[in-house]
C-alpha cells in the first residue's frame, strides 16, 4: 500500500467524522434554536446570543403539550404491548411447530404484509374507525399500532426462538417439567432481552407515527405529540420557532434514549427481522 497506516487511519476518521457531523448537525441545530431567547428563532445562524430554557417551561407547564405526550405514551406503549404479546406467541408456535405447509404459508404471509405499508389502508381504516365511533379514542390507535407491528415482530421473534436449541427445553422436560413450566422458567428468561428489543422497536415506531394519529384524531385533547407538533408548526411558524424547536426536542428525546440504551439489540433485531430472521 502506498499510504502509511497512520495516514489512512486519519483519513478514515476525517471522512467518518465529517459524515457523522452532517448526519447529526440538523439535530444539534434544532436544539440550538430551542435555547434561543424569544423572538430570535432562526435568525443568527449558529450564534447563540443568550441561553433561554423558558420555551421548555412554557410547553411543559401548559395544558396541551403534556397531554399530547401522555396520549403518545399511552398509545405507543399500549400498541407495543399488544404487538409483543401477539407476536411472541405466534413466533414461538411457528418456530417450534412442525414445518407444515400452513406454517410456511403463514410466515410468508407475514413477510409480505411487513412490506405492504399501512399507509394505503389509511382511508378504509379511517372509514371503519369512524363508522365504529372509534375516532378520537385510544382503542383505535392502540389496536392499529398493535396490528401494524405484528409482521416485523413475528420475524424478529422467530429468528430469536430458532436460535435457542431445543435441547434446552427437552432437558427440562426430561427433568419432569411440564410445558407451561418450561415456558415460564426456562424460555421466558432467555427470551426476555429479545422481547424487550422488539417492544422498544415498536414503541419507537408508534411514538414517531404521524399519519395514522393525524387521521384518527380531531379533538385537540386527544392528539398525540407528533400531530400537536404539526399544528404548532403551522400555528407558530415565523413567530415562535423557538417553541416549535423545543417541542421537537422533547418529542425526539425518548426514542433516541431508548435507541442508544439498547442500540446493539435494536440494530440486530431490525436487520434480522428485515432479512428474515
Amino acid at each position: 500500500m502506498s499510504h502509511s497506516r497512520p495516514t489512512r487511519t486519519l483519513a478514515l476518521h476525517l471522512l467518518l467524522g465529517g459524515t457523522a457531523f452532517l448526519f447529526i448537525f440538523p439535530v444539534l441545530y434544532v436544539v440550538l434554536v430551542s435555547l434561543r431567547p424569544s423572538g430570535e428563532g432562526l435568525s443568527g445562524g449558529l450564534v447563540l446570543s443568550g441561553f433561554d430554557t423558558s420555551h421548555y417551561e412554557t410547553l411543559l407547564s401548559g395544558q396541551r403539550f403534556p397531554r399530547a405526550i401522555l396520549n403518545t405514551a399511552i398509545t405507543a406503549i399500549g400498541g407495543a404491548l399488544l404487538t409483543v404479546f401477539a407476536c411472541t406467541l405466534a413466533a414461538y408456535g411457528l418456530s417450534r411447530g412442525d414445518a407444515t405447509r400452513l406454517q410456511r404459508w403463514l410466515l410468508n404471509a407475514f413477510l409480505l404484509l411487513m412490506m405492504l405499508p399501512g399507509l394505503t389502508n389509511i382511508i378504509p381504516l379511517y372509514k371503519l374507525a369512524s363508522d365504529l365511533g372509534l375516532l378520537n379514542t385510544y382503542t383505535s390507535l392502540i389496536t392499529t399500532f398493535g396490528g401494524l407491528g405484528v409482521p416485523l415482530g413475528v420475524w424478529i421473534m422467530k429468528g430469536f426462538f430458532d436460535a435457542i436449541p431445543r435441547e434446552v427445553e427437552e432437558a427440562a422436560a426430561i427433568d419432569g417439567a411440564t410445558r407451561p413450566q418450561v415456558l415460564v422458567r426456562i424460555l421466558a428468561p432467555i427470551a426476555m432481552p429479545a422481547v424487550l428489543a422488539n417492544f422498544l422497536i415498536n414503541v419507537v415506531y408508534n411514538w414517531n407515527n404521524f399519519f395514522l394519529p393525524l387521521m384518527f384524531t380531531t379533538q385537540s385533547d386527544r392528539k398525540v405529540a407528533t400531530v400537536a407538533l404539526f399544528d404548532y408548526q403551522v400555528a407558530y411558524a415565523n413567530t415562535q420557532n423557538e417553541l416549535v424547536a423545543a417541542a421537537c426536542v422533547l418529542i425526539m428525546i425518548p426514542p433516541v434514549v431508548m435507541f442508544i440504551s439498547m442500540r446493539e439489540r435494536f440494530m440486530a433485531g431490525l436487520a434480522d427481522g428485515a432479512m428474515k430472521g
Partner: protein
Amino acid sequence: MTSILRSDVAGPGAPRARSGPPEGRSPRWGWITVGLVAPAALLTVAVQIYPTLYSFYLSFGTVSAGTVTPVGLDNYRWLLTSARFWQSVAVTLVYGVAFVVITFVLALALALVFNTQFRGKAFYLTVIFVPWILSEITSGVIWRWMFLRDYGFLQELLGPLFGDVTVLATPVGALAVLVVANVWKSVAFALLLILAALQTISREIDEAARLDGAGAWRRLRSVTLPLIRPTLTVVIAFMAIQSVNAIGMVMSVTEGGPGSSTEILSLFMYRQAMDFGKLGVGSAVGVVMFFVNLVFALTYLRALNRQSELGGR
C-alpha cells in the same frame, strides 16, 4: 442474532439450532401452533387484510354521510383524466428514483467502510443512525428550517454571500430538498442491512481473490457485490416502498408545494380523501399504490428466497 457493531463474532453463517417440534411431542402440536398464531393473525386481519379488501370496495363507490354508493369504475376513470393525478405520478417517480439511487450508493459506500476494523466504529454508526430514530414530522420541521426563504439556516449563512436562498420556492429545488431530507433519514437503515450481509462473507474468499491478483475495485465488483446481490435487491425494494409512502416529511417540509409540484401520490390520496371529502377517489389512489407496493414486496420476497438458496442465511 447478528451483531452489527462487532465483526469478530460468528455471523449468520454459523450453524443454526435445529427447529421443529421436539421429539415425542403429541400430534396435537399443530393445533397448539394454530392457537398460538391466532392473536397475531386476528390483529393482522383486522388492521391490514380486511382494510385492504375494504379499500377495493370503497374505490368503486362514493361516500357521503358514511354511506357508500356504488359508482362502478367512475373513480378510476376520473383519475385517468386528472392532470393532477398524472403530475403526482410523475413527481413520485422522479422523487422515488432519485431517493433510491442516492440512498443506495451512499449506504453501500458507508457499509464498505464500516466493514473494516477501526476504533470508534460503534460511535460513528450510532450517530449516523439517529436520523432514522426521529419522527418524520420532527425531521420535516428541521429540514424546512434549513432551506426556508428569508430567514432559514442556509439563508442566514449563505444569503449575505450568494444572495437569497430560494430553493424551496422552486419545484425542482423543493423536490431536491425532499430527496436530501429523506436520504438523510433512511441511509442508516439501508447501511445496516448491507453491512449485515457484508459480514456474512468470509474473509478467505476476499483473501483468495487478492492472492489471485485482483485489485480492490475488481474484488468489489466480481466478488463482494455478486455475493450480497439478493440483499441489495431487498434494500432497493425496501427503499422503493418507503419512497412511495413517504408523506409526513412532505407535509411538513413543502406541504406539497410550491403549488402541487411536490405532491407525491400519498399526499394526493390524503388530500382527495380528507380535504375534498372524496373517500372513493382516495381509495382508488390507495389501490393503485397498493399494487405498486405489491410489485416491490414480491420482488423482496423473491430476493429473500434466493438469498436462502445461496446459503447466506
